[in-house]
């Protein structure tokens, strides 16, 4: 239960330090932050770019059931609330894998 691995601990502490830095950066930056609209667009694109970069191998390079289920999920995401999208995606992959 209390087991930990020193490398895991190092990773968690590193993640904590960089996350805290992003959260308190506003204390230093407030009032003197003026991005060009183009830099603003690139900044706004960070969350989707990172999210998609993380899942692309699972969605596009695993097998056709995963790729098809990702497409179904993306379609669901255009019209359903968050939790429903996740349920649809998971059900789609279970169903499509059963066909293989």
């Amino acid at each position, binding site marked *: *239960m209390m*087991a*930990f*691995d020193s*490398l895991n*601990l*190092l*990773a*968690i502490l*590193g*993640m*904590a330090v*960089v*996350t805290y830095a*992003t*959260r*308190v*950066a*506003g*204390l230093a930056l*407030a*009032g003197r932050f003026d991005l060009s*609209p*183009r*830099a603003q*667009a*690139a*900044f*706004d*694109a*960070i*969350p*989707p*770019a*990172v*999210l*998609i*970069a*993380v*899942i*692309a*191998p699972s*969605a596009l*390079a695993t097998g056709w059931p*995963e790729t098809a*289920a*990702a497409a179904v*999920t*993306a379609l669901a*995401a255009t019209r359903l609330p*968050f*939790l429903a*999208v*996740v349920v*649809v*995606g*998971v*059900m789609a*992959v279970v169903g499509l*894998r059963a066909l293989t």
Partner: protein
Amino acid sequence: MSSALDDARTGFSDVWPAMLAAAPFALLFGALAAGKGLSPFEVFLMSALVFAGGAQFAAVELWATPAPVAALIFSTLLINARHVLMGTSLVPKLDGFASWQKWLGLAYMADENWALAEKRARTHSLTPGYWFGMLIPFVACWLMMTTLGAIVGPALGDPRRFGADFAFTAIFIALTAAFWKGRVTAWTVGAAGIASALTYRLAGPPWHVLAGALCGLAAAWLAAGGDAVVATEEAA
């Protein structure tokens, strides 16, 4: 003039729907982390020190034994970079906070409570009572449910049986929709997805995250070129 306790109650009544919505994801996060070999204590520690759903899910997706420390930290930094802008917008509204309340309170700024605080600040002055009344139950719920997920998760068996291994992918697609801003996002997603999948095949993990993210940002920068003027007008 309302008391700190009244403000804390208002904070709690504003945050509880977000808290309930996060609970199943917290359980799932704990179970998936346990599936990657993290102990309940490590899951608790990560939730307490990092407290960022998207970054934590991404980290567990990348997690391996031995832990790819640099890739985990870099992915966390990229995903949480948005906090810099969120904090920059929120800090001027924290005038009623003591210095230690700012340094402690901002440690748990996440998408949900940030958005609620910004909303509150439009009609009221933002008080420490409101902020911590919102924060404490929200963080406590995330800690309890992620740790519980790590404890009960292994008993549920192979996550592939319920398609739980695909839940990450589905969650991230749903989150991407929440960040959708039209044409620029479409270019970002297309470039990031293709670059990441190709890099994964050709160079292997964890390089696909960096390559995909950078190509996505480059695509956003290029696609925003013609839109820059329009975007400024919309923002104004």
